């Protein structure tokens, strides 16, 4: 108590010592920076979209297909499939790689089969290397836009339709599109219960 009194009876009283105001300002900074931490999440997504950081591909490409195929250029696109952690599905591309002309619409499929004796929900997460190519890969239809569900021992072919932008830089001759398949059954168990009913 006495310390508090001493502290407030200082020299600086005349200079307008007002801890309340200083503390208020500093607390604003603290709250602001806490919010900034969370703001980094959408900010990060925007930066990834703009720069293709992490090889994130965009959402469904809905613009009219106005590009004409460029018959003089050939770009090789390779498909990779991975299973995350405990994901038991068999997951492979129909073809390992195809040669395409920028600007033309292409289609391929990916095969999945559920060897487990339970229904599993899956989410595929795409990534493109080199990162810079991510912005030039437009997907008009992709199984990664939605969650996929397979009952025990079911299988299916999942479609992918895409266009390589004809603006893609000259030095990119090969790009790799990789999908990682995640088991999200636990995450979506609430929705599954509804489906079962």
């Amino acid at each position: 108590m006495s310390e508090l009194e001493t502290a407030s009876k200082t020299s600086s009283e005349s200079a307008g010592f007002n801890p309340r105001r200083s503390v208020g300002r500093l607390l604003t900074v603290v709250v602001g920076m806490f919010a900034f931490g969370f703001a980094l999440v959408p900010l990060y997504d925007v930066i990834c979209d703009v720069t293709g950081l992490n090889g994130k591909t965009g959402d469904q490409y809905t613009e009219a297909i106005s590009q004409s195929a460029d018959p003089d250029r050939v770009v090789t696109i390779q498909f990779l499939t991975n299973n995350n952690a405990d994901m038991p599905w068999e997951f492979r591309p129909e073809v390992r790689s195809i040669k395409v002309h920028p600007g033309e619409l292409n289609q391929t499929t990916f095969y999945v089969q559920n060897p487990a004796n339970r229904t599993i929900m899956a989410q595929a997460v795409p990534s493109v290397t080199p990162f810079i190519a991510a912005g030039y890969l437009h997907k008009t239809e992709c199984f990664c836009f939605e969650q996929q569900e397979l009952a025990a021992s079911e299988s299916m072919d999942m479609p992918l339709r895409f266009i390589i932008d004809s603006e893609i830089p000259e030095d990119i001759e090969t790009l790799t599109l990789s999908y990682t398949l995640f088991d999200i059954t636990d995450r979506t168990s609430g929705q599954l219960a509804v489906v079962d009913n």
Partner: protein
Amino acid sequence: MSSVIEDHHHDDHHHGPAKGIMRWVFTTNHKDIGTLYLWFSFMMFLLGGTFALVIRAELFQPGLQIVEPEFFNQMTTMHGLIMVFGAVMPAFVGLANWLVPMMIGAPDMALPRMNNYSFWILPFAFTMLASTLLMEGGGPNFGWTFYAPLSTTYAPPSVTFFIFAVHLMGISSIMGSINVIVTILNLRAPGMTLMQMPLFVWTWLITAYLLIAVMPVLAGVVTMMLMDIHFGTAFFSAAGGGDPVLFQHVFWFFGHPEVYIMILPAFGVVSAIIPTFTRKKLFGYASMVYATASIAFLSFIVWAHHMFTVGMPLAGELYFMYATMLIAVPTGVKVFNWVATMWQGAMTFETPMLFAIAFVILFTIGGLSGLMLAIAPADFQYHDTYFVVAHFHYVLVPGSIFSIMAAVYYWLPKWTGNMYDETLGKTHFWLSFVGVNVTFFPQHFIGLAGMPRRIPDYALQFADFNMVSSMGAFLFGFSQLFFMFIVIKCIRGGKPATAQVWEGAHGLEWTVPSPAPYHTFTTPDGIDLKEAHG
């Protein structure tokens, strides 16, 4: 001394400390709280050091001898967390509590009650953190950087306690920093301008701003972890649309300024000690202030140099590489100024000075290995090897920790009124100096040869250097018990110290008697600003 006399008339307002344990629980006195912080930090230093010795004992020979790999991982994690948040940071807050008010001629910290809270949060936070080791599934085992998904999807159940402990440490640091800023901006002796403040005060002012800017981001990132673990969000889970790499960006946005939080006050300490024992004014005071501010600013825009191998566009790698290297410029200014201060000075080599000179040399080695790591293409070789371990231990142990020890020896006579035993002090210095170098210098070589960090076992070709490193670690570790002995001996008695203590010491703290009375500068009258900084 005067506190004893004043104790006789404590009827309505007492000026001396209260009696018994409650003195420490309820104290709002900046000197008491500074003492509490320093002892707490020393206990954490011994605890974190014990964990380090478990690590070094296991690594003494290849193969698994002493602990299981799971427990080894908990040791590396807890060692890092305890040393960063429990030892180094509270030690500097303790020094700030003791010294900032005395250096600026203030009667106390501006917010004494909050000061008490910010200290007493810490024992709870660290008890909670340490108790995770006894819980089912063990304590945190994901490294002090707690990268997701190791710390979310694959974390032991005790991770929730870790998260709340980090929240508490953050709250404590933020309250402490607010207190430091408000004190420095409002309670300086009349007429003392910012550019008349001692450098320790300046470096702490800047550190405190760094703390209030980044500790909330740390709180944010652990909150996101908490939500991912318990509330089904997917900030860092790719399966749910999140991104684990985001964790690293947010973490290092906190983490890089954090490493400067642990070194800027050390710069302030060394800038106080070197002029005293060279009997000269500090060379380039203003450039020191600007260099500190520049380092603080740059620390916000270089974080991704910790993530070169994670995946980044080439432009990003180049930007973070060059921006990081830019930090060498203000740091070089500082090292130059310290050396220039010593140039043609009348130097003597008491224990604080020995620690300060060792700081300048060994911190520079740590800084140079940091520059090597900043080179993005080379970093692919160094990343996650013992070279990184050697680098950050060189800046933290003979950097931050040596500066804390230098500060303790330098101001101990002021705090206790007794001189410490110089022979013992110098012995402690040489044991620590040899110990630190024997421990960490070989780690450069095993790192360059490719030994990864955070592993309990290693290939045979690293055996000799690891054995040397472990022997150094035990030497350094046990030397610190000797340090405790020296400090306790000094508290219990010794040659009485004069007010100025050191022949070349300048600053307001040296104008009050030794030991410093319980209350100093209760009125602003008669403060000689010419003494404010050396």
